């Protein structure tokens, strides 16, 4: 498959749901088009109920579009073979409680047609990758939220798909677990795997995605490269290490002499609460 085939191609997707009683139509997704090229990390952001999950489900063939088309690497989403190349982690997944982590991955692997030593090797590799080797024989019913998300990510990757779809991958996970998942997403991106994720945690999307779409009330309101979308074109940021008062005053003087430019603000950059939390935790350990 050439690099020119988009990993995800959603064209003019419309999805109406019929509310059960008065048969009133509810438009969950309204004319949404998304194209994700191989290797990109695309973040779809929007408030709850804005149509993010429905868009993903349509892409996976879990719901049928009212109109429009969805395709994965050129294959129609409504066809089963389109799912050979995709891994999916739903929002708040629960796996079969009676299976251990190892059995869970083996089950999904077998569904994808894997077997024998190739499957076991892949399972070991993924358990290692999501840091669950120690919990491999524990029943999934006893896993924490973060562990469930990680085993979920591992099952999504079992058949080495070229595309992974993650629905709120860090919802309800503590900062450490959330950081682990974020690092895993970055690792996938480094391996050239296309990632399509949706979230309402904007900071995280900003950290991992290079393409962003904003969806609101079923409609795509803004889309593009993250850097282009968030850059404030007429401003420039300079962060200095060990600069003394004299240097700062000098810089202020230079700006004043320029006449055209002006200083918007100076001060100490702040760490984020997340970084502070993670630093304190790692120091405690």
């Amino acid at each position, binding site marked *: 498959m050439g690099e020119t085939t988009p990993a995800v191609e959603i064209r003019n997707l419309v999805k109406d749901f019929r509310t059960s009683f008065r048969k009133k139509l509810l438009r969950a997704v309204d004319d949404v088009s998304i194209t994700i090229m191989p290797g990109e990390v695309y973040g779809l952001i929007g408030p709850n109920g804005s149509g993010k999950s429905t868009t993903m*489900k349509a892409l*996976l*063939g*879990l*719901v*049928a579009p009212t109109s429009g088309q969805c395709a994965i690497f050129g294959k129609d989403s409504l066809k*089963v*073979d389109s*799912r*050979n*190349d*995709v*891994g*999916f*982690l*739903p*929002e*708040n*997944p*629960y*796996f*079969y409680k*009676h*299976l251990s982590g190892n059995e869970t991955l083996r*089950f*999904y692997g*077998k*569904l*994808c*047609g*894997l077997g024998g030593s*190739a499957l076991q090797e892949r399972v070991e590799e993924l358990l290692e990758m999501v840091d669950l080797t120690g919990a491999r024989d524990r029943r999934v019913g006893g896993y924490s939220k973060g562990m469930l998300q990680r085993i*979920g990510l591992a*099952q*999504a990757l079992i*058949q*080495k*798909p*070229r595309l992974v*779809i993650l629905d709120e991958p860090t919802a309800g996970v503590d900062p450490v677990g959330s950081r682990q998942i974020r690092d895993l997403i970055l690792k996938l991106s480094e391996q050239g795997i296309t990632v399509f994720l949706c979230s309402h945690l904007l900071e995280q999307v900003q950290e991992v995605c290079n393409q962003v779409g904003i969806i609101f009330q079923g409609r795509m309101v803004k889309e593009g490269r993250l850097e282009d979308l968030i850059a404030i074109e007429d401003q420039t940021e300079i962060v200095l290490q060990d600069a003394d008062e004299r240097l700062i005053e000098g810089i202020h003087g230079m700006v004043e002499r320029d006449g055209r430019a002006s200083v918007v603000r100076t001060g100490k950059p702040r760490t984020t609460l997340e970084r502070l939390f993670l630093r304190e935790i790692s120091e405690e350990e």
Partner: protein
Amino acid sequence: MMDHSDTMSVKDSHVRRVLVIATHAFTQLVRMKVFYFLAIFAVIAIGSNFFNLPQHEGPESAGTEVLRSIKSWSLGAMTLFSVVISIVATALLLPKDVEDRTLYTILAKPVPRIDYLAGKLLGVMMLVFVSLLLMDVLMTAVLHIRTSMVLDQRVAYATELGWPQEAIDSMAAEVNAMGSTWSLQGAVLAVFLRASIMASLALLVSTFSTSTLFTATVSFLIYFIGHFQADARDAYLHVGEVGQGLVAKLVTLLVTLVLPDFQLFNVIDAVIEGQVIPLVTMGKLVLVALYYALFFTIASWFVFSDKEF
């Protein structure tokens, strides 16, 4: 990505996937500890030896009531277990997957929906089959021991009375017919077939119902209707005989095609009485079961293939 030769050839992929899902459903049910029922069954099978039934028989026919009682209790317990498990387990598995969203993760893999349904159904049937097999072994063993005890006792009594050998032989054949026979194995198979019909029916109901309770209730209702639908049908036709038209016939045909007629399975009671099931009857039962199981599974697929999650 995996090489395509790594994944699977289309030919055997369906069978493999159905088996993976079936084995998983089987494991899931086993880990729900349904096999505990087997301990209760053991108590019933062994206990039925000691149920003191009023004896209306002389010493020349002593013991056959006990054999009847063992068969009756055992087959009754088998029916209860197999029908309850096939309905409840099937009604439970599908909504649970939807509720826990595990279904999303399965259908997001290259798994056709028919494979998923067939796998779940097969898993339940495997569980019922294995349980019935174990119960059958236990029942046959108990029956075998008890039959030889009864036979010894009866032969000794007859010899004492100086019966001619011919009469003793015919009496022995009579006792053996009450024991463990091929027809008895056929009756166990009939129990399994009926449970399979119920499992596939529950599968169909659960594809459009929203709760396990609804599925189970409707399925049990149809199970009971299945036992008197033939009577109801006959009565209806009889009443309408004077002006019976095409409509009545069509309605009857439709009812028979959609609702299983469980009176066909009354052969189980005949076996308890020591009668033989003709091979033709057995073959007919297998075909009937196959028809309903396939019909309900295909109907489930129609509903399920357009279902949105």
